[in-house]
Each structure stands twice: as structure tokens, then as C-alpha cells.
């Protein structure tokens, strides 16, 4: 389809390590439309960060990637790293998880924002500077001229994350990956940053992939949600449909483990017992079976196929909540 900005088909990413072959992403297919906002949700180790890095081609040397990634009509899986670079910044950009360590500590904010503008868009230094000021104003940094001269250490965490956003959107990318953009921030600042991302998206019809472990964060800011577990998409649905009609026991467990402010105090939070499976030895059956309260012998021995409900809602479970279709 021509209105898809990104089509990923059967993406696998694995890492060779001393512990064996770590299968971080195991066959993910996803397409993203222009202007669409997608949430990727899962626990640490579910493969959500590796998925976005794998799509962008930002993987370490010991990684092996198979499957196809088509971005704006270009097949990225065949490109060399140098060819891939031409898409970074202008085509795809990423806001990294940790605003404390993702900025270069010994370079001023201004030069870090202007780098992409001069290198990618070929702007002169003056042009890049005035655009950098615009960007800092846009992400609501007070006194942008003074901020250009500052070093990252002189800014608070929230301000640094705004700078990261300014750098990521500097070359007006068509697709923005935001990897846990608010995890290190206070709730008040988190709300401000998420609102800012929504505004930027609406302005330029940018597509966004919002990666997070918190279903609360994606609920109000995405059109569609992918739930990942052990390197696979275990449930995918339009946001409203997912919350109204959850099929996968894992999604439900993840939702229930969020502390609720509308329940009386002193109550226990339902938890998901156990841990993610060993990524070097995938389960023969459903990856979630060892932690699932509904699991049967079938779940432990057979891989559940991806069931498509026809309304954009897919899940991987033999015994979905509320029955199958």
C-alpha cells in the first residue's frame, strides 16, 4: 500500500554472545501508515528496543538481522551502512531512552542540534543557528539563545529530553522512534513531553513509534498498539479496540500490574509471577506459557499462531480472553 511509510516483514534479530545466540526479535511484521502513531509495549527484555534499532539499522557488530524493512519505498535491508545513513535524521530519527547519557557531555547544545542541519540539509552555520533557536523555542526551552551555549550538564533531565527531541525532529523526519522517552522523567514533565510529541506529529504528519513498558503512557497517545513478549508481537490492535477487547492474557496481566489511583489504598497489585524466558532458548510452545495462569499442555508444546480478527486486531493465544473468533 502506498500510504505505508514503513513495512517490516518477518524481522529477526539475534546477537551472538558468550551465553549463546540471543534471539531478541523473532519474526515481527508490522506496517506503519503516514502520520500514524504506534505504541510498542513490553517488559525489559521483550525486544521492543531491539525492534526499533533493527528497523533503523542501529545494531551492534555482533547482531544478525534477517527479514525485510521497506521504508518509503526503499528496501533498507539491502543497503550498506553508508547508504543507510542518508535516511537517518531526514527519513527516520530516534529519541533515545536516557537523556542523561545520550547527549555529548563536552559539546554545547547548539552544536549538537546544528550538526544534523549542516550535515544532512546542507544549511550554512547561520541558517542552522536560527533553525536551532526555532527548534528550542518549539520544544519550549526558555531563553533558547542562552541554551545554545550551554552544556548538557547545565540542564535538568526534562530539559535534556527536550533537547533530544529537538535534535531528533531537526530535519523533519517522516518517522520518529521514541524509545522510552519519558521513563527517566517526573510525571508532570512526562505529560508535557508526550503532549509536545503529539503536537510535533500533528504539525508535519510525522509517523511515530512510541516504545514503552507502560500501557498508561501509550493509551492516550497512539492509534495502534503492539504488545511484545520474548521477541514476538503477541497482540496488536487499534488502541481503543485493545483496551476494550483484550485477548492476550499477557496484555491483561501487564495492564493489571499498573498501580491504580481509582482503587482504595492498601490493596495488593496483581503481579505477573516469574520472569521473561531465557532468550537463548526459546520455549517450544507459547513463550508466555510458563507465567500464564490459563496455560495448558498444548500451550507448553505448540506455538500458537497469530489469529487475525479482521478488524486489525491480532493475537497469539490458544485460549484468548473472552473466547476466540
Amino acid at each position, binding site marked *: 500500500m502506498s500510504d505505508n511509510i514503513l513495512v517490516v516483514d518477518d524481522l529477526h534479530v539475534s546477537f551472538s554472545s558468550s551465553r549463546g545466540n540471543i534471539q531478541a526479535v523473532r519474526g515481527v511484521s508490522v506496517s506503519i501508515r503516514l502520520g500514524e502513531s504506534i505504541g510498542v509495549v513490553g517488559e525489559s527484555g521483550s525486544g521492543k528496543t531491539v525492534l526499533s534499532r533493527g528497523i533503523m539499522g542501529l545494531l551492534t557488530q555482533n547482531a544478525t538481522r534477517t527479514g525485510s524493512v521497506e521504508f518509503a519505498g526503499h528496501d533498507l535491508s539491502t543497503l550498506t551502512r553508508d547508504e543507510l545513513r542518508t535516511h537517518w535524521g531526514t527519513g527516520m530519527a530516534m529519541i533515545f531512552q536516557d537523556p542523561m547519557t545520550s547527549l555529548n557531555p563536552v559539546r554545547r547544545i547548539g552544536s549538537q542540534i546544528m550538526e544534523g542541519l549542516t550535515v544532512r540539509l546542507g544549511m550554512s552555520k547561520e541558517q542552522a543557528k536560527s533553525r536551532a533557536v526555532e527548534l528550542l523555542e518549539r520544544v519550549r526551552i526558555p531563553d533558547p539563545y542562552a541554551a545554545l551555549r550551554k552544556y548538557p550538564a547545565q540542564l535538568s533531565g526534562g530539559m535534556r529530553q527536550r533537547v533530544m527531541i529537538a535534535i531528533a525532529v531537526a530535519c523533519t523526519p517522516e518517522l520518529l522512534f521514541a524509545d522510552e522517552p519519558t521513563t527517566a522523567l517526573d510525571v508532570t514533565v512526562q505529560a508535557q513531553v508526550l503532549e509536545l510529541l503529539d503536537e510535533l506529529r500533528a504539525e508535519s504528519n510525522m509517523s511515530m513509534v512510541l516504545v514503552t513498558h507502560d500501557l*498508561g503512557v501509550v493509551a492516550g497517545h497512539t492509534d495502534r498498539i503492539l504488545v511484545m513478549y520474548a521477541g514476538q508481537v503477541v497482540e496488536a490492535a487499534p488502541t481503543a479496540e485493545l483496551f476494550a477487547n483484550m485477548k492476550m492474557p499477557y496484555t491483561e496481566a501487564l495492564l493489571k500490574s499498573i498501580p*491504580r489511583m481509582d482503587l482504595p*489504598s492498601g490493596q495488593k497489585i496483581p503481579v505477573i509471577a516469574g520472569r521473561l524466558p531465557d532468550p537463548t532458548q526459546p520455549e517450544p510452545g507459547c513463550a508466555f506459557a510458563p507465567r500464564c495462569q490459563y496455560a495448558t499442555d498444548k500451550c507448553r508444546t505448540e506455538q500458537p499462531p497469530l489469529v487475525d480478527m479482521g478488524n486489525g486486531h491480532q493475537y497469539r493465544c490458544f485460549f484468548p480472553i473472552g473466547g476466540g473468533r
Partner: protein
Amino acid sequence: MAGTGKAHMRQDGDKVLEVNDLVMNYKAGRRTVVSAVAGVSFDVLRGETLAIVGESGCGKSTLGKAILQLPRPTSGSVRLGGDELTSLDDSALRAVRPRMQMIFQDPISSLDPRLQVRNIVDEPLKVWGRGDDAEREKKVNELLTAVGLDPAVVRDRRPWEFSGGQCQRISIARSIALDPELLICDEPVSALDVSIQAQILNLLQDMKDRFGLTMIFISHDLSVVKQVSTRVLVMYLGKVCEVAPPDALYANPAHHYAKALIGSVPVPDPRRGRAKATIEGEPPSPMNPPSGCRFRTRCPAATDLCAQQEPELREVAAGHFVACHHPNPR
């Protein structure tokens, strides 16, 4: 807010901790002083969990450390049981230390990477001479079991072999080893995933019931403290805004800052809409705090009065106190 006043202090009850007019100033440069905690008073009764909530930089961690005299506060009083900690000399203070323990935010860096788990949990017992080798070993195994770890599996491993959630379990085992009267948890779950966060919150509840702990739970996230606390104290820029039982606070936040904090928590329900950014910007610098109410520069209800006069804590409902000239109507 933020204001002064002691209307919320209780007359009777079995007080484990009583803090009066605590001030913590740091020098920053030759003339400037950072006023991190500016006259905070509160008390904690036996078996209570007091949550201290506020944004980064509000002084909540400084307050937690000042209670432990790490470092000693600039002025004010901290009474643990019958002992005035601020007037104890170093050796007397050291003797009191086993009675109060702390759990830190970053579970991995707060454990010595070179020590085996059994030595980490054993260290306080060994330092304080609690039992011979065999007794201590038994105690360490009990503690590890209590926090949901299998001693046989984890005893000889080192912190880097564990996930963040497991490291936090080890921290908890270490902190309760000496049966403290008071446990201060500084953002114990903010570095963890929601699923692991729920496990640790439940574990802290269990430990509290099982060992009769009195806790102070410091967090920036109001949704996290609801389950575990019996009283919530909201701080802003070194001052107390509001003190209330959790259910009353969440149902009827009286202070505009508390209301904004509650409104900022993302709700996992798309029909309820998104969490709105209810306040703009970030707190002003504690080197140069606003006059009067410290929250007035970001407050939607601020008037001239707020710039001139600092509001005092007053009772708006039974057990619900607010320091605001124009509190939210109930």
C-alpha cells in the same frame, strides 16, 4: 505552597519519628545558598507508612537523608523514639543507626558488585555482632527467603548476575536484617518496569505486615504510593503543601500542586483521554525561591496575597491539611 505550620502534627499516639522545623541548606558558591528543605515538620506513628511525594528537586530525598543525619541537617529536630538525633555525637549516633535503614533508588549501584549476595545481607549482622557464624547464616537464609529469593540459588552470586527487581529484593533483605524501627525507601521502584514495580510494592507491603515496619516511602509518582501509604505528604520546593490520608488526597486534592500531580499520571484507558500537562514548566531554582507561597509562580489560582504571605497548614477535613490561601473547593 507551600507553607509552614504544624496543624498536622498529632498530640498522641506511638510516635516512631517526629521531625520539627527541619532545614537543610547547602552552600553553592560563595554567597548563594540552596534551600533544599525549608522548615518541614511531620510525625510518623508506629506501623504507619508515610509517603513523601513531589517532583525532582523538591527536597524529598534530601529530607529522607537528613532524617538519617546524612549529612546532619542545618537546623531543626529529628526524634527517633525518645532520642534527639541532632544532638547526639557521632558515636552515639552510630549506636542508633541500626534502628533506621534506607533502600535506595538504583538497586544495582547500591549493592557492592564484588560481594556475594550472602555477604551483602550478612554485612549489617556481622558489623553489629548479631550472633555467631551459624546463627547469622541461618538469618541470612531466612531474610532471602522472606524477600522471595531462593537462598540456595542466590547465596553465592554477585549483584551483576541479577535483574533490577532482584537486586531491589536483595536491598530489602539487607535493610531489614537488623529489624529496624524505621525504613526509609527512596524511590525504590522508579527504576523498574511496571510489572516488576508491582512485585516490589507488594513485597514491601508484606515485609511491613510481617516485621511490623514503620516506613517512609519517597516517590515522584502519586500512583505508586496510593497502595502502600497510610498518609501522604506532598512537598514542593522544600516545603509541605498538603498532608492527608491517601484516599482523601486522591478524591479531593486541596492543593493546586497535588491536583496537578494527580492529573499528570497517565491513565491506562483511552476512553478517559490522555493525561493533560496540568502545569507548565519546572520548579524554580531553590537558590532563589519565590516569596510567599513557593508554588505561586506555576499556580493557576495565585493572587497578590500568595506573593506576600506564606500560607500555613490548616485542616480542611478530618486529618486533611493544606497550606494554601485558595485551596480547591471540596
